């Protein structure tokens, strides 16, 4: 056992776990069409969790001079702590997933600035009146978990991202468009150009304003629209924490066919290249692909050690943590299976309807039952299979369990959104629209 803190904690409490994290990140940013800031951010810290007389004690610090206090502090906290419903796991074999691209180490700020300038110039060449932000960044991190039962895992993650935003103002009408990609791996100009193309396409579609449709019309969620609208209210039901507290609508429904039979949603931490992929979770449990929904049938929720113990089940290797608190179950990489309809056809088939790309205010309301509601930040009116303009001053609302049981079509390709979600576009019914009388 190499970790001195773990050794001291084990001597005192028997059951102990040390989580350490160290990271360096190097973001650069262009704001309002010019280079603004070059940053370096280093972070390091340690968390200690023990089980003492059946209760959990937890404390952490980012101050190296106070690391020695942690053993005493968890001793003070444990008598007040929650009842431990788990034991620390032993070392287990883990799958092979690449999470570190050493190419990230050798990228200079100068080269990122050049890349940013290239994208900025390309955007301004097409839209000279736009105000643009461009960001690039790279990071190297190492997370380690060691426990008294023998787990000794250290995982290195690299990170690389590009993001482009553009703003247009015409009179009192303002348009903001963003696109980004992130990955463990360094990517090339082809991916940067795809991010740029998303922004350019959104600007093009937004040239005209259009009124919102009314009545029961189909709503086409682009991959980004799926991520913005449907995922959080859907996935909150699959979080083991909400299952344990009885707040999840999927309780008692595992194995039930509740949604459209073409819908399959996975948490797939083994998907290479995604920014959330990993071979092992933050408690040392091997990560695996989890079927949340398969062919419309409700699958299994995700658990960490404590929630699994509370539910009388096994950890699904889904523990996520920072330094501030004990782990929580979470979803690493959302992977939704593609359907069989080409996107162009999904659009062409719409006589009248709405495309959703982005929302403002999603997640503010009560999501626990699967409800969603938000302002349409970026959406387009479709008439006779063609986009006719941007829709504003409109709200959408609905329930994901209803909407995802009313899928008209799923696109035949899944696309990356933010680097941690892979989803096809979906055209659905059952979304309620409300619009201001003065919407232009």
């Amino acid at each position: 056992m190499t970790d001195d803190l773990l050794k001291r904690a084990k001597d005192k409490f028997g059951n102990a776990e040390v989580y350490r994290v160290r990271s360096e990140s190097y973001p650069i940013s262009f704001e309002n069409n010019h280079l603004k800031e070059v940053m370096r951010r280093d972070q390091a810290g340690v968390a200690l969790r023990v089980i003492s007389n059946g209760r959990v004690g937890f404390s952490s610090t980012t101050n190296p001079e106070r690391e020695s206090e942690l053993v005493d502090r968890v001793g003070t906290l444990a008598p007040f702590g929650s009842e431990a419903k788990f034991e620390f796991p032993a070392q287990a074999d883990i799958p092979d997933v690449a999470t570190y691209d050493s190419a990230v180490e050798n990228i200079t700020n100068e080269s990122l600035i050049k890349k940013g300038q290239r994208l900025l110039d390309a955007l301004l060449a097409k839209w000279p009146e736009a105000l643009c932000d461009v960001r690039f960044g790279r990071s190297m991190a190492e997370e380690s978990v060691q426990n008294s039962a023998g787990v000794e895992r250290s995982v290195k993650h690299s990170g690389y991202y590009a993001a482009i935003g553009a703003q247009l103002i015409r009179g009192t009408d303002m348009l903001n468009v963003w696109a980004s990609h992130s990955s463990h791996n360094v990517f090339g100009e082809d991916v940067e150009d795809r991010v740029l193309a998303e922004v350019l396409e959104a600007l093009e579609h937004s040239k005209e304003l259009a009124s919102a449709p009314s009545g029961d019309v189909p709503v086409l969620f682009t991959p980004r629209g799926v991520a913005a609208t449907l995922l959080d209210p859907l996935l909150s039901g699959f979080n083991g924490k909400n299952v344990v507290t009885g707040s999840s609508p999927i309780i008692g429904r595992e194995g039930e066919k509740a949604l459209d039979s073409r819908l399959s949603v996975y948490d797939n931490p083994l998907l290479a290249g995604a920014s959330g992929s990993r071979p092992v979770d933050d408690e040392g449990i091997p990560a695996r692909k989890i079927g949340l929904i398969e062919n419309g049938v409700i699958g299994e929720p995700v658990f960490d050690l404590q929630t699994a113990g509370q539910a009388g089940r096994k950890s699904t290797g889904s523990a996520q943590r920072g330094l501030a608190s004990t782990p929580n179950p979470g979803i690493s990489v959302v992977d939704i299976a593609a359907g069989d309809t080409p996107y162009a056809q999904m659009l062409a088939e719409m006589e009248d309807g709405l495309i959703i790309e982005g929302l403002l205010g999603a997640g503010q309301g009560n999501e626990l039952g699967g409800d969603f509601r938000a302002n349409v930040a970026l959406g387009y009116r479709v008439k006779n299979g063609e986009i006719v303009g941007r829709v504003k001053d409109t709200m959408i609302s609905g329930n994901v369990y209803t909407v995802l049981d009313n899928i008209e079509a799923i696109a035949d390709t899944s696309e990356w959104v933010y680097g941690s979600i892979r989803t096809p576009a979906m055209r659905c019914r059952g979304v309620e629209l409300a619009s201001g009388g003065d919407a232009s």
Partner: protein
Amino acid sequence: MTYQDQIDDALKGHGADYCEIRIEETDSTRLTYRGKELEDIAQTSGRGGNVRAVVNGGWGFASFNDLDDLKEKVGGAVEQARLVGGEGTKLADVDPVVDIVPPVVVNSAADVPLDEKKRQMDHYNDLVWSVEGIQSSDIIYGDNRRRVTFGSSQGTYIEQEFNHVISRISAQAREGGDVQQAGFSLGSLGDYNLVQGLDEQVIDAAKRAVGLLSAKALTGGERTVILDPVLAGVFVHEAFGHLSEADNVSENEKLLELMYMGRKFGGKHLNFTDGAAIPGLRGSYKYDDEGTPAVRTPLVRDGELVGRLHSRETAAMLDEKPTGNARAIGFNFPPIVRMTNTIIEPGEATLEDLLEGVDEGVYVANWYGGMTQHEMFTFSSGEAYMIRNGKIEEPVRPVMLTGNLFNTLENLDAVGNDLDMNQGGGCGKGGQMPLPVSNGSPHIRIRNCLISGA
């Protein structure tokens, strides 16, 4: 070596147009409950710092936990700033100041023993569960002390301490797949009294959650709404506050054309203010994170734009006075322009006056959250009730409200006389969240406000 000596030493011969160092130490306690059991009790400590430098208008920033070799870190940040460059550094003048600000905390949460905090929160959790029909509870208590040491190449040296206590208590009720929740959030400048004596509010929230299961949902559309002071505070923060942050307009000529001084936004009853110099609120402080003294900034007077919120850089760019609104949530972020305590100044109308003449509308209270994207904003109520013939009647399911700066303020036709503050919120911007802010207002009335279906 003291932090002051370390900072002085590291800044010698820095080679930038301007350079600053911020060092912070934090201590936090947090208790969370989910369901009948305490979920987590944690004490965490932190320390770290940053260097920020500007050369020819370009910024370099380095943050770290380890305080060794500060001089080298200054060199790194200056080198990054050089790489950015630009058309010259613009920073509004602020008189250098040396000040050790004594902490002012009444009933400091830091002095309350942990078992007392747990006993109090156990009691609230038991109260939630004493209400029939409760499915789960969600309770957070947190207190935090942040000691900040700041020194700049212009001779400013400041030590300040920030203390905060927050609590959110929420109850959930469920019937089949229908899950409803109700709750409330509170915050104070470290005063533990905040979380005492809440029994009635807790029981009321739990009963509301159960009641929502049988409440009807409204269909979306435009309606007359009356906002309680808490939600009206969130409204002014989202609907106007964010566009008052000068970093939005300082390099944006088209937006500046819309947000010019003297622009009319609504009737003479509209008077908005922001300021960290308003004492005793969660957004209150003596100096911001650039060492600029806090002031009280009128934003709107008699319906006209009269001011906005600044960092030293945005103030210089627009040739306006700095307002002490450059804030960072912690040492690993640079300060950016933020709100502090944002207020709709009270008028003369009573709630009864506002209700009079509303044949049908919605009374919305309490908050879930809010968000702004330039002129568009949304905010969500925690409670909603029908108004009929000037009377507040049965509860309906909470709604989301949305609007557009350029017409919603025109539709804000009445301001009450009963100013109250919402101290339970945290603001997010540029990846920095939650920043302690407060906002407040009297009751207000908005005609033709777009609300969501539920």
